[in-house]
């Protein structure tokens, strides 16, 4: 179990990784990666029952995770590497020809830690529900986690999966939404008028927890509360209130950085703002 201070240090390093990866690749999605950095850091370093040494794609004996919003590979790969799934140096190959670190998660390159392909939005929650049902059929006690975007939740399939998970009583499924309020074309409310996600998930029959997605105290207690859902017969949705581009002043709170990459002088500025960590860059 890491202290909040330790988690904060890891999160700074993950944000450095994200920016250095997308700048080296001259492509990728830093905005959402930086809004979900603290969530995934807490998940992998404190909350999930996971072990890179014994990891297999079938997830036997461990918790499983699906990144439904597949474009957030920079944060996903950085957290996996920092958690020990593959060498940190490999982060430098992100999006390059032949790399195991494909633009969106792929199971075809043999990258440890990846359970399923994602990228075409709205599909991961269904896959996660299938994993959770598989564990139930096997009488296995572990959980399945799934991270969705709020923009992604405009996809109808998310709500199909929402109905399915309640109907099949998947209380071993914990979904999370990176509720940063932004998508490529602008603020979610101006692009699609998504409305109150908490009210919607409650109406769907889920246990709903709203938490502050950049506060480890809040994140960790949300996970603890979510885990207590086992036995209730209901899946849990944690809505993490976050900020796109969090951690760097000129990137924070705007949709402009969903899929654009800082220029070299902007990268330098951003890394200076984040500061260095003892973990070191890749």
């Amino acid at each position, binding site marked *: 179990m890491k202290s909040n201070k330790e988690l904060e240090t890891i999160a700074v390093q993950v944000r450095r990784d994200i920016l250095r990866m997308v700048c080296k690749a001259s492509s990728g999605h830093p905005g959402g990666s930086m809004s979900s950095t603290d969530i995934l850091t807490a998940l992998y370093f404190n909350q999930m029952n996971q072990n890179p040494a014994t990891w297999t794609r079938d997830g036997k004996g461990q918790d499983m995770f699906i990144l439904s919003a597949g474009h957030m590979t920079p944060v996903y790969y950085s957290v996996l590497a920092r958690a020990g799934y593959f060498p940190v140096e490999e982060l430098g190959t992100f999006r390059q020809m032949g790399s195991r670190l494909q633009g969106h998660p792929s199971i*075809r390159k043999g990258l440890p830690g990846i359970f399923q392909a994602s990228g075409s939005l709205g599909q991961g929650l269904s896959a996660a529900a299938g994993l959770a049902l*598989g564990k139930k059929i096997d009488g296995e006690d572990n959980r399945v986690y799934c991270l969705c975007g709020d923009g992604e939740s405009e996809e109808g399939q998310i709500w199909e999966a929402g109905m399915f998970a309640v109907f099949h009583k998947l209380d071993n499924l914990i979904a999370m939404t990176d509720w940063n309020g932004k998508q490529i074309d602008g603020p979610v409310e101006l692009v699609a008028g998504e409305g109150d996600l908490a009210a919607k998930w409650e109406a769907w029959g889920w246990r709903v927890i709203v938490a502050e997605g950049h506060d480890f105290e809040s994140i960790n207690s949300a996970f603890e509360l979510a885990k207590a859902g086992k036995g209730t017969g209901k899946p849990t949705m944690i809505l993490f209130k976050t900020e796109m581009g969090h951690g760097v002043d000129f990137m924070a709170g705007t949709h402009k950085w969903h899929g654009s990459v800082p220029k070299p002088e902007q990268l330098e500025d951003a890394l200076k703002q984040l500061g260095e960590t003892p973990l070191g860059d890749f």
Partner: protein
Amino acid sequence: MKYTDTGKKDTRSGFGAGLLIAGKADSRVVALTADLKGSLKMDAFAAEFPERFVQCGIAEANMVGAAAGLAITGKIPFIGSFAEFVTGRVYDQIRQEVAYGNTNVKIASSHAGITLGEDGATHQTMEDIALMRALPGMVVLNPCDYNQTVQATIAAAKYEGPVYLRFGRPSVPNFTPADEPFVIGKAIVMNEGADVTVFATGHTVWEALVAADKLQEQGISAEVIDIATIKPLDAEAVLKSVSKTGCAVVAEEHNLAGGLGEAIASTLAQCCPKPLEYVNGADRFGQSGTPAALMEAYGINAAAIEAAAKKVIARK
């Protein structure tokens, strides 16, 4: 004819029977449906294995993803719906979750083609083979009768990887041996002949055999080959037969674009160009009608195969 119709049966019931056998043989087999348990003949499996039967409601996209998740945990999921709703409706889900994700999902596709009948064009896909053939690594099976569908279902369960298993709604002649194991990737020579090869798949195999009989009466020797596996295509069998007969007819309950006809045409064009005629739905949507009336109207029956055979022989 060397084959006897032992009594008309629907191929979807062959799927239901095969699913039950596969489920008894392997506890990893699970079945999912989107509110079409009865239509897909999954009742027996659901009654025998309630904990391995997953009702998904009318939400096919989620069903595909849930099946992929189940497959990742080690299950062998069969997802069942009408052909259009497990292909065109969910093409991107199948592409990402099943094909690209390389999950061990079996797509059970019933009511394929125009013989779905009275419901009309919205429910009659004539494009599904094209869609599934286009996906890298997808195995495409289209068995011809009840017995072969039982065996194809068992073979699909044993095969490791994504499979598209296509079958139909109407009762049709049941004529292949009940106990013949289905070999994925192997074409089946039903009838040896010298003058023309008729490649057929699904419901058109019986029609091809009837046409071959008629041709025989007129002194024309037709070789009938059942292409029960459309992908991977048994190119060796295709080339061997056409090298001998010198021309071919391809019959399928599907449109021209991307179907078996084009698969065989591309194989022949590359290796052994010979005259070829098609018996298929051309480039059309279906409509309401009885299966027999539709097959007649769209020119996908024994009479159409017989005419196409004569036409192609004349082009040699």
